[in-house]
């Protein structure tokens, strides 16, 4: 009987997997990175997230917004309340209208969304040669390959092959679909100086900022993994108890 249950369960799984595998992409395979948040026991590495936030703030935020993040969210990656207030106060945000009907600038507060570099998409395009730097707060979930893809893009800049025709102003990237990306290589060694003494190499910064962006896309991952473990354990025990009960109740029929 148990065998049949497994057969039934396996079939359900196969039906689901087959469809997902069927749409595996056929582009340059992404090198797999080791992420602290991978797997059932995976959690975010807060030091890496903070370094990643620094990379985002000092490099990426020149062009890319993180629309779904608030300053208060930074408390979750290990910044104290005062540190969050200080980070927020470092930004000017538009508020209003005031009693005179005017919009005005004021220092940011933890309850504010982190302001993006441009007031709107048109301004972003105008400043970037017509290309729109996409929002980064969901980018890891919005691309096949997730963190490996984002890391791949950040480290995948190369000289184009001799036969490859480049459009003026575009850059060659191994992992970008079509290989021509408007974004120039964003990272260079020592582009930032990490307070904890970590060497700011391109792979290190790419790793940290990708971790930060994964957190930005999925801030509840730690909680999800922890809760999941309890739920799964509970169900495993439950399945055992119910199976024993079922055997006992059915004993007189079999």
């Amino acid at each position: 009987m148990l065998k049949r249950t497994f057969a039934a369960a396996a079939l359900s799984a196969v039906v689901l997997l087959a469809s997902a595998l069927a749409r595996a992409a056929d582009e340059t395979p992404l090198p797999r990175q080791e992420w602290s948040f991978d797997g059932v026991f995976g959690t975010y590495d807060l030091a890496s997230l903070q370094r990643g936030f620094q990379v985002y703030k000092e490099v990426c935020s020149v062009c890319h917004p993180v629309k779904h993040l608030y300053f208060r969210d930074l408390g979750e990656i290990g910044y104290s309340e005062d540190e969050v207030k200080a980070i927020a106060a470092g930004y000017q945000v538009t508020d209003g209208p005031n009693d005179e009907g005017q919009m005005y600038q004021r220092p940011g507060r933890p309850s504010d969304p982190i302001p993006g570099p441009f007031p709107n998409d048109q301004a972003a395009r105008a400043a970037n040669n017509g290309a729109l730097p996409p929002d980064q707060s969901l980018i890891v979930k919005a691309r096949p390959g997730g963190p490996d893809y984002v890391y791949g893009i950040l480290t995948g800049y190369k000289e184009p092959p001799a036969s490859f025709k480049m459009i003026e102003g575009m850059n060659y990237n191994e992992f970008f679909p079509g290989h021509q990306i408007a974004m120039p290589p964003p990272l260079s060694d020592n582009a930032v100086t990490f307070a904890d003494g970590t060497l700011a190499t391109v792979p290190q910064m790419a790793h940290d900022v990708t971790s930060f962006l994964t957190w930005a896309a999925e801030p509840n991952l730690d909680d999800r993994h922890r809760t999941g473990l309890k739920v799964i354990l509970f169900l495993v025990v439950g399945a055992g108890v119910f199976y024993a009960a079922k055997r006992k109740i059915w004993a007189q029929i079999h």
Partner: protein
Amino acid sequence: MAETRPGAAARIIRWIDYRLPFVQFLNHELNEYPTPRNLSYWWNYGSLSGIMLVVMIITGIILAAQYTPSSDLAFDSVERIMRDVNYGWLLRYLHMNGASMFFAIVYIHLFRGLYYGSYKTPRELLWIIGVIILLLLIATAFMGYVLPWGQMSYWAATVITNLFSAIPVIGPGIVTFLWGGFTVGDPTLHRFYALHYLLPFVIVAVVLLHLIALHRHGSNNPLGIDHKGPEDTIPFHPYYTIKDLFGLTVFLLIYCFFVFYAPNFLGEPDNYIPANPMQTPNHIVPEWYLLPYYAILRSITFPILFISSKLAGVILAFSSILILFFLPWLDTSPVRSARFRPIYKWVFWLLVIDVIALGWVGANPPEGIVVTVGQIATFYYFIHMLILFPLIGKLERPLPLPNSISAAVEHGGARLSGAGAPLAKP
């Protein structure tokens, strides 16, 4: 005296039952309900799908309390649920993956019915009501998929609503009517939201009909023969309540694995990009559970007589489900269970393979070999339904059926000395 006089609770229940036989009804349908004693775990999927319906409605109502069905705010409101609502991420992932689980269960349930001939007399209406539930589920799932207003939501809505434009003369008018405008937009999202909230309750009503029809003659069983006396059946409770409960727990393990450890595995990354009417995604694909229909839809690449290829595809895709309504009469075999049908037993698996092949075709861009496979698989699907079902029933010589369920169970090596005797409640 104390033994003969019922307690207060029993007296209250008796008072109510005399006027409204509700407890009596529950006792009759869920407790005493005589059920074939030989149901396998393939019979778990009916109650599982009922439980999934409840899970979807509960999570859905809580999500609806936080969601904003406006084209400007829908995407952000879903992110708000994910980030700022207490356990919003859990509710949404349960709902999102719940749809996939629901369809996986329903499809297994449906193929179970196909294998064991559960649609044959006297269960034709039971089957037909089931197909109606499937149609309602597809409509509900499709409209639910539009609500997050991501890229795939928007373009799926565009592609699917545009199908109606294939209808001659009135098609374009119908599409404008569905959209509430001249393109998929805010009015479309609002009405899809209203319908997505309404249809599950319609499904509940049709499920009740499904249950009434089921309880009229009881469940079919792996032998496909009628139960003839009390020795063939056991009370639903505790035998099948505990068996269903164990099955439910195993199912929840799979469901929870997806929810907690691979919540976006079954989804499309593109749906985390806000809807953009100016930019079409490279590949527009539906969710996995609609891929076979999508493959049939795209399989007709040439006009048939005066019917355009698009209209022909639409007709075939709808027919692939509608044809199931006629299955009780297309299948001419008097024997229900494939166990006793030496040819159908194998041909059944061809249909399973065919549908999986259609799913693969639906997932891939329609180029090269994919198109050919899609056409062959579509052709086979209809051949299977329209020709193989009637033909095999006529040609096949079924194996001899056992005299009764209890006889077969005993013969199958039952250890119980009293097997064959009516089984009372333990």
